[in-house]
């Protein structure tokens, strides 16, 4: 069945409804309106710039830009010429740019980018760090948009089954994997998810999300391009400082949907001081995604914004991943999200039993049922499907799966077998609804970004004064911020000054990963607990830390 191509859909919107607004782009307290005709023209300008540089079919184009409409144009322009674009994060002010770029060396060797689109300052730093190892670059400049364009259209060449982009959203740079997505998978998932949500031509999205993350890229940007709907795009950096600007945007533009990770709900509540109200009555759903979703976060959000028109029925949950384009499951709109108060003892043994009223319980939030075209299975370690309410590994199959990791066949074979993707998440199904309970590996999700404990440990281990290898990075719940925080436990050599070492560990992790660890505990040599096999145990040391004995 033909689903249409992304360039074809872009052209159709620009031809049939040229003046319809694709995006209200908000930056520095000013708004710019981008119509579908504007979007198409500017994307073609990029396509022309690529063609002149010999960039075409199958070439990887990395788009590494701050909040700017050029993000959309550079990306779609690459799709128009049959190239394979990928959004990539740019260095944050706290990251050291030489470390940032050196960290990209290994990734570039694998993916061999044909062109990097970025801004001047970033490209200068890249050239200084990488020299000849850097791919050709293109500076995103408004002058590029003003050039004369040939009249011919060249977006028709892309086949529906072709890989049209890479998603590099998981892990820090050295471990990044390029998730290959076909045109058919993207358009198919966006359409199926829209049907599930009842998302129609009148709906619109408000977003502060960065586009290098699948939630910003697919749920917001691709949805608006494929369906021809309105997107309000806020600057992620501005949003962090003034999170209630999302509510301002929803009120002003009468937006009907927004996707946000769990921490964002709490961040907004923390900044909504006094009894200020917003008119949020246009909202059909605020969808919690990309981090473990918590019942108490929803309760606090609903309580704070009840006078703004928010009801618990508008707060929803989605389970999503780039390897399935985006949504796997979604809670049913129209009602509240199902919750299970699980007996903690049974739960710790991998079984889910409803706690008796008044008993201590673990509150679990449903992620809903699979969207059309997607299948979910829970399996045990041997690969056998387990019964309902038994915790196991989550596998995803169906029509929207990725085509593998770009130029990483061994990694692809590990995770993608017989049409099923092993997600690395743990969970269970109850009455057909998926509940996600944790991770198989050491991935830690901090403010919507994924980090691996072993990466943080490797960086800390290199710091002078730390006993090499005697380091543990753990994730703890920061109840006040309602977010996961990283704590690093390090054994410090007897001849080193603890205060200097702990500070140096913070600096090293921040400069290398852009990650602010919440605290660093300096311990005497020998304090960290090993497993019977001689490895340092994250789990046991985490338990000791939480008891207060490793601080």
């Amino acid at each position, binding site marked *: 069945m033909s689903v249409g191509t992304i360039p074809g859909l872009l052209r159709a919107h620009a031809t049939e409804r040229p003046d319809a607004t694709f995006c209200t782009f908000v930056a520095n307290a000013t708004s710019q309106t981008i119509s579908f005709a504007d979007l198409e023209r500017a994307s073609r300008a990029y396509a022309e710039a690529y063609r002149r540089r010999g960039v075409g079919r199958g070439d990887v184009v990395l788009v590494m830009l701050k909040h700017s409409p050029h993000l959309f144009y550079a990306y779609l322009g690459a799709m128009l010429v049959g190239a394979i674009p990928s959004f990539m994060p740019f260095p944050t002010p706290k990251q050291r740019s030489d470390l940032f770029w050196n960290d990209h060396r290994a990734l570039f060797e694998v993916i061999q980018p044909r062109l990097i689109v970025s801004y001047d300052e970033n490209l200068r730093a890249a050239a200084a760090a990488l020299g000849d190892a850097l791919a050709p670059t293109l500076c995103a400049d408004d002058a590029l948009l003003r050039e004369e364009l040939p009249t011919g259209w060249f977006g028709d060449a892309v086949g529906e089954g072709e890989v049209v982009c890479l998603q590099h959203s998981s892990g820090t740079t050295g471990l990044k994997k390029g998730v290959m997505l076909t045109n058919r998978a993207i358009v198919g998932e966006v359409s199926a998810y829209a049907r599930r949500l009842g998302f129609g031509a009148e709906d619109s999205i408000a977003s502060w999300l960065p586009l290098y993350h699948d939630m910003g890229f697919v749920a917001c940007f691709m949805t608006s391009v494929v369906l021809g709907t309105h997107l309000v795009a806020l600057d992620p950096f501005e949003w962090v*400082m003034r999170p209630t600007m999302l509510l301002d945007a929803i009120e002003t533009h009468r937006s009907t949907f927004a996707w946000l990770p769990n921490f964002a709900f709490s961040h907004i509540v923390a900044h909504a001081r006094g009894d200020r109200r917003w008119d949020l009555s246009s909202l059909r759903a605020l969808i919690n995604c990309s981090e473990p979703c918590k019942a108490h976060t929803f309760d606090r959000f609903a309580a704070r914004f009840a006078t703004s028109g928010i009801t618990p029925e508008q707060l929803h949950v989605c389970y999503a991943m780039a390897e399935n384009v985006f949504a796997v499951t979604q809670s049913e709109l129209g009602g509240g999200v199902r919750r299970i108060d699980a007996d903690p003892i049974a739960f710790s043994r991998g079984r889910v039993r409803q706690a008796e009223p008044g008993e201590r319980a673990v509150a679990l939030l449903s992620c809903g049922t699979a969207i059309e075209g997607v299948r979910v299975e829970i399996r045990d370690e041997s690969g056998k499907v387990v019964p309902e309410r038994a915790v196991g590994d989550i596998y995803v199959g169906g029509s929207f799966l990725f085509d593998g990791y770009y130029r990483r066949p061994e990694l692809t074979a590990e995770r993608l077998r017989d049409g099923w993707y092993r997600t690395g998440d743990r969970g269970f199904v109850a009455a057909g609804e998926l509940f996600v309970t944790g991770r198989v590996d050491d991935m830690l999700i901090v403010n919507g970004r994924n980090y691996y404990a072993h990466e943080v440990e490797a960086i800390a281990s290199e710091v002078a004064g730390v006993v090499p290898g005697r380091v543990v990075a753990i994730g703890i719940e920061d109840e006040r911020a309602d977010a996961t925080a990283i704590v690093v436990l390090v054994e410090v050599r007897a001849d080193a000054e603890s205060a200097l070492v702990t500070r140096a560990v913070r600096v090293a992790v921040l400069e290398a990963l852009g990650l*602010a660890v919440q605290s660093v505990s300096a311990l005497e040599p020998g304090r960290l607990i090993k497993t019977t096999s001689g490895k340092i145990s994250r789990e046991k040391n985490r338990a000791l830390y939480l008891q207060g004995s490793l601080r």
Partner: protein
Amino acid sequence: MTEAEVLARVRAVMIETFRLTDDAVVTRATTSLDVDGWDSLSHALLIMNVEEAFGTELPLERTYELADVGELVDLLRDAVARTDVR
């Protein structure tokens, strides 16, 4: 307001925002690396709290990249001076 007065008030807001002990040492040279839990989200909370404490609004673009407490103190003194003139 003198620099010392601004610093003292910023210190009080930091103690509240980051739940520091009452004897926490905060100087102009203090940075996010010296304070447990000072990340980009709590930084936003700190800025909102100092704005409330000083009854002023800081220019958004200047608040992202403050290198240390000293720069925050200078930014606040400028903002308070502007507010007084108005």
